[in-house]
């Protein structure tokens, strides 16, 4: 069965006005039905619809931010790798799924434990002991089943990381140690893709957007030092709020890269101090 005909027929039932143009709209039920009849994935139906100027209703309130149907189509065709699915990565995954980023690569070899429950959005009492990557995939399916995911329930190593990142448009650094962060930077440079760095400790957080040619993590942390794995978070811990704040900014920067919204935190480090109530921006330059 031709999906275009079905999309056209279902799109007549509701319309969405954006930027003074009236578009046909598809309900979730219609997307599911067309996918089932035509043996397509939900994502493929949504892509087909947007190509015809028909908008899946679930994205109605995003249109102003993503720049209309073309922006939504761009997001659905994008692939983002989220490296680390703890306090930062869980929320980044959830926010990108809600925005309809088409494919999310979920990378983490850890399992949920009780000490994660205070802040890691994917962790619930029911998933204690479950691998974070699989728990995240289950949660994302509940939020937006059109988003496809690739699960790597393994820790990043110099041998596997490039393969896991390959094909992604952007990577998001949601890791909790410095050596893997530098490894991620190596992988992104080799694949020529940007990554969005985020880190937290207690009341503090930081975000930066790093492209392959940029001074990157060295301009923030100094030269790679295998004896220096952690920052002040090891003594101070992490609450629920700071990861949410930093993860939101990371997700926003990721969307801006995918949508080619030029202004970003590239070559700048945003340092957030929620005690003092200040956002400090540092220009990052090589020495």
């Amino acid at each position, binding site marked *: 069965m031709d999906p275009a005909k079905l999309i056209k027929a279902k799109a007549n039932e509701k319309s969405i006005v954006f930027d003074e143009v009236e578009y046909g709209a598809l309900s979730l039920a219609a997307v599911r039905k067309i996918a089932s009849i035509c043996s397509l994935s939900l994502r493929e139906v949504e892509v087909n619809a947007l190509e015809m100027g028909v908008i899946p209703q679930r994205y109605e309130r995003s249109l102003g931010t993503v720049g209309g149907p073309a922006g939504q189509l761009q997001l659905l065709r994008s692939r983002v790798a989220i490296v680390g699915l703890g306090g930062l990565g869980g929320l980044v995954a959830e926010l990108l799924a809600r925005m309809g980023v088409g494919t999310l690569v979920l990378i983490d070899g850890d399992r949920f434990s009780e000490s994660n429950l205070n802040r890691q959005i994917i962790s619930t009492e029911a998933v204690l002991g479950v691998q974070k990557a699989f728990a995240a995939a289950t949660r994302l399916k509940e939020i937006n089943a059109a988003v496809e995911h690739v699960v790597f329930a393994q820790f990043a190593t110099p041998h596997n990381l490039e393969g896991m990142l390959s094909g992604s448009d952007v990577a998001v650094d949601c890791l909790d140690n410095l050596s893997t962060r530098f490894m991620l930077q190596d992988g992104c440079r080799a694949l020529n893709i940007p990554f969005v760095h985020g880190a937290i*400790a207690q009341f503090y957080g930081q975000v930066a957007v790093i492209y392959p040619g940029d001074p990157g993590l060295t301009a923030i942390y100094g030269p790679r030092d295998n004896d220096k*794995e952690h920052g002040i978070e*090891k003594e101070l811990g992490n609450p629920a709020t700071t990861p949410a704040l930093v993860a939101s900014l990371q997700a926003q920067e990721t969307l801006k890269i995918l949508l080619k919204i030029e202004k970003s935190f590239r070559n700048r480090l945003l340092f957030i101090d929620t005690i*003092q109530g*200040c956002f400090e921006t540092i220009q990052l330059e090589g*020495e």
Partner: protein
Amino acid sequence: MIKLEVALFATLRRYNPYGESSDPFTIQLPVGSTVEQVLNELKIPVKESKQVFVDNVRREKDYVLQDGQRVAVFPPIAGG
């Protein structure tokens, strides 16, 4: 002597001699002073001050400072 504007961020603000704040303050040091001398003057332990930015560029301990430069010191944060 050279005059420097110093700002200490996050947990490092406890080394601010004018009270616990990240607001910038001025210190005076002899000509030719380095980043390390600023840290010593303020009694900031070396392991807490790996990230020193002088006029926004990360500098090592032996960097020689010029009059009027801004020195911002951050603790490393790396949690996720």
